[in-house]
């Protein structure tokens, strides 16, 4: 379990990282290393050179503006946990982050690494989907922004091109006030067998508005439970509506990931149960 020999460069700026990346087709960016390094040890990834972006100051910023919240790709999980502005405006990200692995992982892993790695069981994937994240990308050739609908292409594949770099994740505001993340962990890995992020507002009459609901872990790909969102719009949030939304929401996923121990029927059931539990948390007491 030892990685093959590799080169290592530490980039000081985004431009330097992009220039190094454009020169070597087999180079890879290194952020927290908590997905990439395990793959390298298994020799499932064998980059020629690691371009370490973890010391680039521009990637470690966190901006809260009236229209949006922008989190630099290099911001680490534990930094998301301690930020009072996030606590106030998007507590769901702290809830999701707090159940990622353990303190060691949370002190290294980054929001950008999680986004690019595109693990279908990533906790933050549900948050990105529910909050309609937008991914800010740069390459030597220019800049672009990818909306969440276009981000996840396949398990472990995001929309990022080889010579591109994710610089920040943007969450458009306003963000509904009621937010929750719930997770059912795999007893071995601790990754989500089903994780659900749900956000919404309730009108003064208690009717649902602007729900964003997404599920990670359970299906082949993290997915947005659009049918549940639509179904809930304008309805009160009660036991019946929660049960119905959970049912139709679970149907929004495609469950062909049959890993033997956790068959698709079970995963789908888990998506439904966890959808219901997330929504119950949002219901008025």
């Amino acid at each position, binding site marked *: 379990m030892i990685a093959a020999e590799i080169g290592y460069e530490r980039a000081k700026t985004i431009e330097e990282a992009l220039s190094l990346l454009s020169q070597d087709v087999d180079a890879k960016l290194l952020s927290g290393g908590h997905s990439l390094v395990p793959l390298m040890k298994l020799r499932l990834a064998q980059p020629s050179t690691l371009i370490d972006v973890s010391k680039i100051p521009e990637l470690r910023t966190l901006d809260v503006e009236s229209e949006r919240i922008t989190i630099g790709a290099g911001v680490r999980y534990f930094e998301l946990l301690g930020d009072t502005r996030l606590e106030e405006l998007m507590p769901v990200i702290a809830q999701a982050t707090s159940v990622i692995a353990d303190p060691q992982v949370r002190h290294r892993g980054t929001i950008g690494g999680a986004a690019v790695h595109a693990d279908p069981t990533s906790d933050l994937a549900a948050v990105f989907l529910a909050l309609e994240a937008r991914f800010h990308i740069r390459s030597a050739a220019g800049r672009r922004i990818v909306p969440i609908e276009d981000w996840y292409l396949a398990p472990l594949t995001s929309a990022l091109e080889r010579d591109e770099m994710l610089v920040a994740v943007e969450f458009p505001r306003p963000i509904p006030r009621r937010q929750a993340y719930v997770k059912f962990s795999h007893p*071995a890995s601790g990754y989500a067998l089903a994780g659900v992020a749900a956000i919404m507002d309730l009108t003064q009459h208690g009717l649902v508005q602007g729900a964003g609901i997404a599920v990670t872990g359970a299906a082949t790909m993290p997915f947005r439970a659009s049918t549940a969102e639509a179904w809930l719009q304008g309805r009160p949030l009660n036991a019946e509506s929660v049960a119905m939304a959970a049912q139709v929401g679970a149907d929004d996923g495609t469950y062909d990931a049959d890993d033997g121990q*956790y068959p698709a029927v079970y995963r789908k059931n888990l998506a439904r149960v966890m959808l219901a539990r997330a929504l119950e948390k949002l219901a008025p007491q």
Partner: protein
Amino acid sequence: MSRKLWGENVARREDIRLVQGQGQFTDDRVLPGMLYAAILRSPHAHAKIRQIDVASAQKMPGVIKVYTGSMVSGHLGTIPTAWIPPDSQLKMVPHPPLAVDRVRYVGEAVALVVAQDPYQAEEALYRILVDYEPLPAISDPVQALESSSPRLHEEAPENVALHWKVGTDTDEVFSGADVVVRQTFRQQRLIPNPMEPRSALVQYNSATGDMTAWLTTQNPHIHRFLMSGILGIPEHKLRVIAQDVGGGFGSKIACYADEVLTAFAARDLMRPVKWTESRSEHFVATTHGRDHYDEVELAGTKAGRVLAVRVKTYANMGAYLSTAGPGVPTILFGLIVNGAYDIAQASAEVYGVFTNTTPVDAYRGAGRPEATFLIERIMDVYAREIGMDPVELRRINLIKKEQFPYTNPFGIVYDSGDYHQTLDLALKTLDYASLRQEREALRRQHKYMGVGFSTYVEMCGLGPSQVAGAVGFQGGLWESATIRLHPTGKATVLTGASPHGQGEETTFGQIVADRLGIPLEDIDVVHGDTDRVSMGWGTYGSRSTAVGGGALAKAADRIVEKAKIIAAHMLEVPVGAVQYDAGQFYPEGSRERAVGIQDVTLQAHLGWNLPEGVEPGMEVSAFYDPTNFTYPFGTHVAVVSVDPDTGEVKLLRYLAVDDCGPAINPMIVEGQVHGGVVQGVGQALYEGAVYDGDGQLVSGSFMDYAMPKARFFPRLETQRTETPSPHNPLGVKGVGETGTIASTPAVVNAVMDALSSFGVVNLDMPLTPPKVWQAIQTSMAKGGPS
């Protein structure tokens, strides 16, 4: 005699160096000129090796030498098994350290690379080209017996490694019984995963012919014994050292090919060579545990009296016979399938089967967890069948206090016990009656809680050597102890036990401190070095304190005996008039004249004025062979909840009431119980090695193989009763394995209790959420809970 430290929670002395990072584990050690070995392992479960091309690996930077099976086979013996159960028709199949023309499991060693550094060694593995011709593979022991299944060894044409029967004739009882219950059980394969993976560092002196091997072993002397034969190095020229060992759980008993190969390379290259297993290697290359299919039958009356039990077992041995492998599903299992119950008739029949899987050997409890699981589970099945509370059923059948010593149907003599007392204490601690009420109340709200019991007994403190011989263990099971008092009265205590986490440096210190009246700080307990410590048999089978402690007590008594003669001389009174208490010798009635043992020791070393015929010095050895095993027992209770929506089982409470005789250090006993319980719960709920149809280990990492984690557990509750064993001078019984032995069935019984309204009688372990959920779904489809 005053007992100053006996029974005290003395803090573990070994922890200071461990928490300060100053332990000396094998891999910590660096020798000048040391080389590193890496092992290429078979990716196939079963294949012919057509050819191995090492040319390009040999040319890699830093590579010193690449070895293949054909290069070493003439120079090395095969890996032996050391347990040959009598009347078992054991097939002793050859197990070459490096595969020559065929591989039989994923992880089998195929080539060895030695290089300047570990990175170079690993890199070179990728350059070895092996031309395999894959063969059909089989991983399931029952399927392996089918005539159409692939065969592993010419010597075992049916894949049967052993066939063993024991017990009484039960047919008549079964045909006449009012109630007969039958159940098949699967006791899944487990992967030990001690914190420290295996490692070997070997140095050879070609001038003197001396070899030193630092190994991760639970039994350095057994390793020396076996390795000297395999390598052809005389025993007195081979020194095995196991200083700090980070857990074993049985997986560091066996003599492995990896260790032998490292030693071979060190001798061949005349340079020290180190090999350390990676965690991924550990999953496939270190012995596994359990892996049974069992058919159990119980005959009884409608009133709850058990008349007979009958067990038929298919035990997976893996691809080769590991060192103690054959003894585990036979002797350590079959002889105790009646458990803690007074059952007149019992029998066991065991097939040990070769499959294309990692060899199976002892794993914490070794055979006794498997036996306990069967009897404790079938008792619950029986209770449900006759509509009796499982506690009541146990109360009726438990061996009674006045029946000890109790001879079980296999002729095993249980030493001492008060089984009902532990049960009563458990019921009282839990308030069982209100637990049952709570369970009923929750059910009405569609919430499912269950309570499960395990009133176990186990056979440990291995054991009398005569019995070892009679059951085919190719060694003795006595233990040695040496107490060496230095001129200043400080003590070095050497034990043939080889603790690797159990805390005997502390408990053994306590024993000696009390017996000799020497402060604990003045005593060092030394173990794990065949050059310093006399022949001994090591640590496994919960034997160290019962047997090693027995040897120590004997040695201490001899010290006192000798010191007393010298003290009498110093006091100028006859020996018969000298009293001894806590390190003080004094003439009867005049304590103020006392001389201390440390002063006496100085005199013994100076030798200026010793009594007639007394040798100078103060050092004695004792070899202690117990008269029987010890039989710790107790009652474990698990309280669980089952979430019907997800199938998730939560442990709400866990109570262990154990009796291991008097506790030398209750805190250490409790620690052993905690660890043991967690491992047993691991089997019940989380762990399980899974092989696919091609013999690939699917659960080959912590991503898939679920170890029990702290957050899965409530605070564990422990209680003790103390019934001394008459079989050793300290009265102690083993406690290293009781937790693992007792807890697995307690938890499964609790889950089955929770699921009883769904009509679920049995589910295979581990009781994972999908399995439990599926069972509930099936019941719902038939109309739901009763």
